[in-house]
């Protein structure tokens, strides 16, 4: 039996039923990673020894009744921007060289308390800035669905670890699409929860007002089970909403649901195959009983500039603390304090990160604040209002996740603006703080996966997931697997 093909919930059930031990499944997963990761490079750090030790502990906990979660004992991994006590946390940046936090991200603590077994830390775009996982200081991650294809980003390592059956589920983070777009590119399922649903404590921020941690997995069922564990109020995060952890129970619930399709999101720039597959999915949902209705949302034109102004402004401030004094990389030689700061930062950050820091510093600088930053906050209000209006009518909004399927490596690296434009369908949802999930809905003519994006009103994760769950009951896109290369 190939353990790696199990879903997270199936694995959890077998562990609970003692059909397999936590140590066995952990060992198997580690061996699988050994065999496959040379080809895909999903991991920055693999914690084999810690994981095996942890597996024993968790087994004990399961046996004595400490761990009762349906995912207890199931091996998983985290995007490397979530702090893990005593384990290297790099944000895929040179500037965090050697950084070992002495605290855990709350989302991970919640998983630990549910008996999760951490296998390691996953690759990403440096500081989550990018849509290809190519800006990682530790090198790019490869998409298993095609030769020389990017996995998307920034949570590309998380997506590939799932798509190649290395882990049963993973956490990603999503500031402007960083969970959803790699899910789409890698043919897996994931959700960016409502802003405030999952604690951001211990998530090294890119843009604090937009960042949200979410689960990525093989099916809606797995993702819901993880979200149940990681959600909930955290007194350490002021923006964490004061609500109990989710207790999602999935059911077929699509009949009579009103789903809006914003026609402006299907215009110029959207690849033909992607458009077709997404509209086919809409048709499918309609056949299942949903009411599909087209509507206008012309504000889409403004979402990218608004997003990049706000995200870069916050990033420029958030990343100022990396200065070579308290942690991480410090330049070996310097003349004085300013020299130490400038050299450490210039040598420690990659080009894309520097670019966003500079854009951010610019839009906040004296004389430009009103024209850019304040203006963006006003447009954000306009965008939020457009969504509010749409959700007066609809239970969910259906759209593509990205204009294309997985790009060729290097294609966008040379043209940052072109790369930013690829985020057109995802960023507005972060601006409005909405929950949004991506499920596979077909393949383009090159065999690359297409992702369907379903967005809901605030805190409607359960309803949203019911629609996605119903869709997966009727389709098998999420069960399709790429050919996974083992060894070299």
């Amino acid at each position: 039996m190939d353990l790696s093909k199990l879903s997270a919930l199936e694995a959890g059930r077998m562990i609970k039923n003692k059909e397999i031990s936590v140590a066995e499944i952990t060992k198997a997963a580690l061996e699988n990673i050994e065999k496959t990761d040379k080809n895909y490079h999903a991991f920055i750090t693999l914690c084999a020894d810690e994981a095996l030790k942890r597996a024993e502990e968790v087994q004990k906990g399961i046996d004595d009744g400490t761990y009762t979660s349906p995912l207890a004992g199931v091996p998983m991994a985290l995007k490397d921007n979530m702090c893990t006590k005593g384990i290297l946390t790099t944000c895929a940046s040179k500037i965090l060289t050697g950084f070992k936090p002495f605290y855990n991200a709350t989302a991970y603590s919640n998983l630990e308390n549910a008996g999760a077994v951490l296998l390691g830390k996953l690759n990403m775009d440096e500081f989550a800035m990018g849509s290809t996982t190519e800006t990682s200081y530790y090198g790019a991650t490869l998409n298993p669905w095609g030769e020389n294809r990017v996995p998307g980003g920034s949570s590309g390592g998380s997506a590939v670890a799932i798509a190649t059956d290395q882990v049963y589920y993973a956490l990603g983070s999503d500031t402007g699409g960083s969970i959803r777009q790699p899910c789409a590119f890698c043919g897996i399922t994931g959700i960016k929860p409502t802003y405030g649903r999952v604690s951001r404590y211990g998530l090294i921020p890119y843009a604090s007002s937009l960042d949200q941690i979410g689960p990525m997995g093989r099916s809606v069922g797995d993702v819901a089970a993880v979200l149940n564990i990681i959600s909930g109020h955290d007194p350490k995060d002021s923006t964490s909403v004061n609500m109990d952890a989710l207790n999602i129970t999935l059911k077929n619930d699509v009949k009579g649901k009103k789903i809006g399709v914003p026609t402006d999101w299907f215009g110029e720039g959207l690849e033909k195959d992607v458009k077709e597959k997404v509209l086919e999915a809409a048709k499918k949902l309609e056949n299942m009983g949903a009411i599909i209705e087209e509507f206008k949302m012309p504000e889409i034109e403004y979402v990218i500039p608004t997003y990049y102004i706000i995200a870069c402004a916050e990033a420029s401030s958030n990343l100022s603390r990396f200065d070579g004094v308290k942690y991480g990389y410090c330049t070996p030689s310097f003349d004085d304090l300013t020299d130490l700061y400038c050299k450490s930062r210039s040598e420690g950050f990659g080009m894309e990160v520097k670019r966003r820091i500079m854009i951010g510093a610019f839009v906040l600088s004296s004389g430009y604040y009103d024209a850019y930053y304040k203006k963006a906050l006003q447009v954000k209000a306009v965008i939020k209002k457009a969504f509010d209006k749409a959700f007066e009518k609809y239970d969910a909004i259906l759209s593509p996740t990205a204009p294309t399927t997985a790009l060729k490596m290097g294609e966008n690296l040379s043209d940052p603006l072109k790369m930013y434009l690829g985020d057109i369908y995802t960023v507005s949802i972060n601006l409005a703080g909405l929950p949004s999930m991506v499920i596979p809905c077909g393949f383009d003519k090159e065999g690359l996966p297409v992702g369907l994006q379903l967005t809901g009103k605030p805190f409607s994760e359960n309803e949203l997931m019911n629609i996605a769950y119903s869709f997966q009951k009727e389709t098998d896109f999420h069960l399709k697997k790429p050919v996974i290369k083992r060894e070299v």
Partner: protein
Amino acid sequence: MEFLTTMGLEVHCELSTKTKIFCSCSTEFGGEPNTHVCAVCSGMPGTLPVLNEKVVEYAIRTGIATNCQITRYNKFDRKNYFYPDLPKAYQVSQLYLPICHNGHVDIEVNGAKKAIRIKEIHMEEDAGKLIHDPLDDSTLVDYNRCGVPLLEIVSEPDFESREEVIAYLTKLKAILQYIGVSDCKMEQGSLRADVNISVRPVGTTKLGTRTEMKNINSFKAIARAIEWETERQIDLIEDGGKVIQETRRWDDTKGKSYAMRSKENAQDYRYFPEPDLVPIEISDEWIEKVKKSLPELPTEKKERYIREYGLPEYDVDIITSSKYLVKIFEEALEVCNEPKEVSNWIMGELLRLASETSTEYENIKFDAANLGKLILLLKNKTINRNTAKEVFEKMFAENVEPEKYIKENRLEMTNDAGAVKSVVDAVIAANPKSVEEYKAGNTKVSRHLMGQCMKQLKGKADPASVNEAITEALKEL
């Protein structure tokens, strides 16, 4: 040419909450470097701030006590700059919507009353401490003070003299101490001021170019800094130069200010709303609740002391200028119900001893109820005034309990008339020369005899009865 000086003040005051503004570390002063520090206040990646409710309450208190409007919807902003004492490289502060605005503090200088307008009060976090390490010519960074809550109280440029500035600071300090939001220990840096100064020729209305002097932390230093900077600006203008708008650092040991390097000067703080904190909405009920919890403020207290106790305004001014003196006054009064007596003891002996020993009022240790007891012991003639002063010195130094101390040291007055009489007789007998002079009409010598008697009685007699006994004895001669 005659010049007018215009000044504005930004006062930073550390709040006396138990914990820091955004984390649960203690605000206790001192401690080994980096021992009152956690992941949040040391700016570890991924950590987040959570606001201490007490800080908001203290800010509202301060706003009410300084006649401010409370901003019902207020927010935090980030002020971005790189410096090693600021681990996140931004300070969480309030720029766009500070918690209090449009208030005033009333002062009085040489009998003239004046309202100093408060522009705004905002909440923010303190920075860490930098220690120069001469051994390898480097700087060591201690984050213990990082995140200690501060209020920045910004006045309008309403000051025209040093005296006004000092009167304002004295008043502000008293208010902050009264309402219990800060201990205002200047020597620990919990109250410090930035002064903006400009000068202009008499007869002109346009304000001159201002300079700012930062972080001055004693009244004396502030007075000196103002004097020095005013003169510098006037000299500059009179020599045909121009004042440049700049931040200057006051060096109190050298007694002069100097411009900070232009690089430090050109600040572009890139303020923007702090996304990690949510807005604060202050309801009517909250403000009412805080209002009710406020103690009597200095001005109210001053008026009541004059009205109810008939104390001189000068004395009341001094006593009500310090929450600690007020505490002593009220606790002593509680015991003896002799307001004038208590006031006299504070104005006389207490201030003398405090000044001789350079003791700040907040560091006065004795139990104020004991002053009340001492006054009663004096009133019922258990001791005389000289003994009382002697006992008070002991109380001040060692916090002795007066009754017990008097007993142990046998300081009670002798009420035995026979014993007094025999001492008086003996002294008269031993001083025939004085007696002769007395007889010759020089009544002043009785004072000398009095001194002799008190000496023999070891001061433990009621001077009035000794005096009476001497007069009697001399008459009988």
